[in-house]
């Protein structure tokens, strides 16, 4: 692929439009090749300029988003996601190329990155300590994570709690936060200055708009954090705030059910999770008001370490 570009005539210093783009996402390097101009524009809006593909970094995930066959370019155009080894999803409409790429990268990380215990959780950091928000889809995890990221917490990740089981530290993976359906409105009202991308209507998860990861998070995306608090959030409409301490064993069970690769890691996963739960204080939270929840989180006891 690179050779083909090397042969193509080009002005010095100008990358040909279809050249692969390199993005760093925390511990991973991703190479994206796509002819879709809008997708490339959204990528640079979200993650900044790409690095040149100099062949000097390890590429963890080699991704392509292609157009469908010629006929489909004319009628209901498609976007097809491919990794270097697989085409895991059915094609999306071309206008949904960005959410497709983001989900595709999630799939890649979840199926390959077993150098981490991967929790399905939002993770944020303050004063060097990390807050883990593990939750099932629909519990308001992304909304809460986005809101905290807009109120001074450093965003590590909205989707993956990457626990390095060698060190017990959490690694950042600061990417766009996909807000779904009513959450889009909620975050717009919560922080009118929030940088939201275009709304993609009627995806498989409903309407989706992405919150751009804060520049500070991107800049510090190689700084790991010591886990200190685990809160299992659950949004229930009109519910008063309830924050209840959780026993270690309950937290352990819920975390193990909520991880992408807990079973696969076997004893390594068990040890990592045990250490995580022991080093954290755990709560279960139910909330109906975002501001009340954030205040409660801001007042969680400072860890004695």
């Amino acid at each position, binding site marked *: *692929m690179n050779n083909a570009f090397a042969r193509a005539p080009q002005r010095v210093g100008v990358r040909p439009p279809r050249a692969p783009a390199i993005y760093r996402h925390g511990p991973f390097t991703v190479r994206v090749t796509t002819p879709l101009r809008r997708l490339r524009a959204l990528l640079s809006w979200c993650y900044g300029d790409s690095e040149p593909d100099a062949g000097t970094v*390890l590429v963890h995930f080699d991704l392509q988003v292609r157009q469908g066959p010629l006929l489909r370019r004319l009628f209901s155009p498609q976007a097809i996601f491919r990794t270097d080894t697989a085409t895991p999803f059915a094609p999306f409409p071309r206008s949904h190329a960005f959410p497709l790429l983001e989900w595709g990268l999630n799939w890649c990380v979840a199926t390959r*990155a*077993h*150098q981490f215990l991967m929790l399905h959780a939002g993770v944020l950091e303050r004063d060097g300590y990390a807050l883990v928000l593990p939750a099932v889809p629909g519990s308001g995890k992304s909304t809460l994570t986005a809101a905290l990221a807009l109120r001074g917490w450093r965003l590590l990740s909205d989707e993956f709690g990457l626990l390095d089981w060698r060190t017990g530290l959490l690694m950042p993976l600061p990417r766009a936060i996909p807000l779904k359906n009513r959450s889009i409105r909620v975050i717009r009202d919560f922080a009118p200055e929030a940088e939201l991308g275009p709304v993609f209507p009627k995806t498989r998860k409903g309407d989706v708009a992405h919150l751009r990861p804060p520049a500070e998070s991107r800049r510090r995306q190689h700084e790991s954090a010591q886990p200190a608090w685990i809160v299992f959030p659950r949004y229930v409409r009109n519910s008063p705030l309830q924050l209840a301490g959780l026993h270690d064993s309950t937290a352990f069970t819920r975390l193990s059910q909520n991880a992408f*690769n807990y079973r*696969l890691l*076997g004893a*390594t996963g068990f040890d990592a999770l045990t250490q995580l739960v022991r080093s954290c204080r755990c709560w279960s939270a139910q909330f109906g008001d975002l501001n009340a929840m954030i205040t409660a989180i801001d007042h969680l006891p400072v860890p004695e370490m």
Partner: protein
Amino acid sequence: MSPLLHIIRDPSGVQAFSMDAWNRLLRESRAHYLCARLSCLIEDRGLAPTCPPEVWSDLTAQRFFAEHKQAQVRLELRKLHKALAPRGIPMLLLKGAAYAHAGLRVACGRDFADLDIMVPRAQLEAAETALEAGGWLTETKHRYDQRYYRRWMHELPPLHHRTRSFEVDVHHALLPLTGRLRPDPTLLWAASRRLPDSPYRVLCDEDMLLHSAAQVFQDSEIAGELRALLDLHQLMAELGQREGFWQRLLARAQVLELGRPLHYALRYCHRMLGTPVPAGVLDAAAAHAPGAPVQRLMDLLVPRVLEPRSPGRPPARMAVWLLFVRSHWLRMPPGLLAAHLLRKAFRTGKG
């Protein structure tokens, strides 16, 4: 040359690798699901410290799949033993399960698609009854398929325990009963050995290699069998160190009439992966080579379908098709093959 084949040949080549070369190697290894095994090959040579740390952590992370599967295999074997032992049916482990239990290096990082065991032909029906009572079910519902397995094949239709996802293949012979080559299972049982501190048996060293060779070069379409070729390469490298192995191997191939697949295995492992095979053994096995035209054709086709292809190079469709035809030709006599293919052709998608 493919970077993957280059490194299997000579793992020390990674010391001179640029990051660009690593990226190409990893791309091929991922496509062939060989990352974990590659990491084992590198580790065996003590080369792990020479790899860039981010590469090493990416490669070794893929070993969890193999370890997870091996744990599942151990569990499945215990359950099978519990079902079969009370009826006095011995279990012989084949392929991956045997490599792992015999402590061979080839098992390191090796994934499992299914679990293969062998039971004596005379006790096959008893075994099937016992497994059915124990909760193992077959998903092969079609009557023709059931008959196909029972009358012509060397194994029962694949079994699944109803509470687990693991596929179990129960063999009573190594190769299909309708095939050109039919090594006598009683000879295999007689030479097999019991593993220390374990209720299971495994084939003797020579038979283990011959079985693996026959699987690739007699009973498969060869295309897509790079991992099996690596099995052969690693088995030869490890078992070949054992006293008198090569002499026993040649003699055994005569007895079991598996000279031809052995010849192919030695030839292509040596040619493609640089497997250390003594020159005398290569020559002696060449006595089982086919006629010159067939040999030349195989030399053309086999590397074409096994070598990893650089991205953008189209797949070797013609070679794949020819070897597919060959595999069926070797499996059944022409009349039976024609009837079988006719049936398959007229069958609707639902099987």
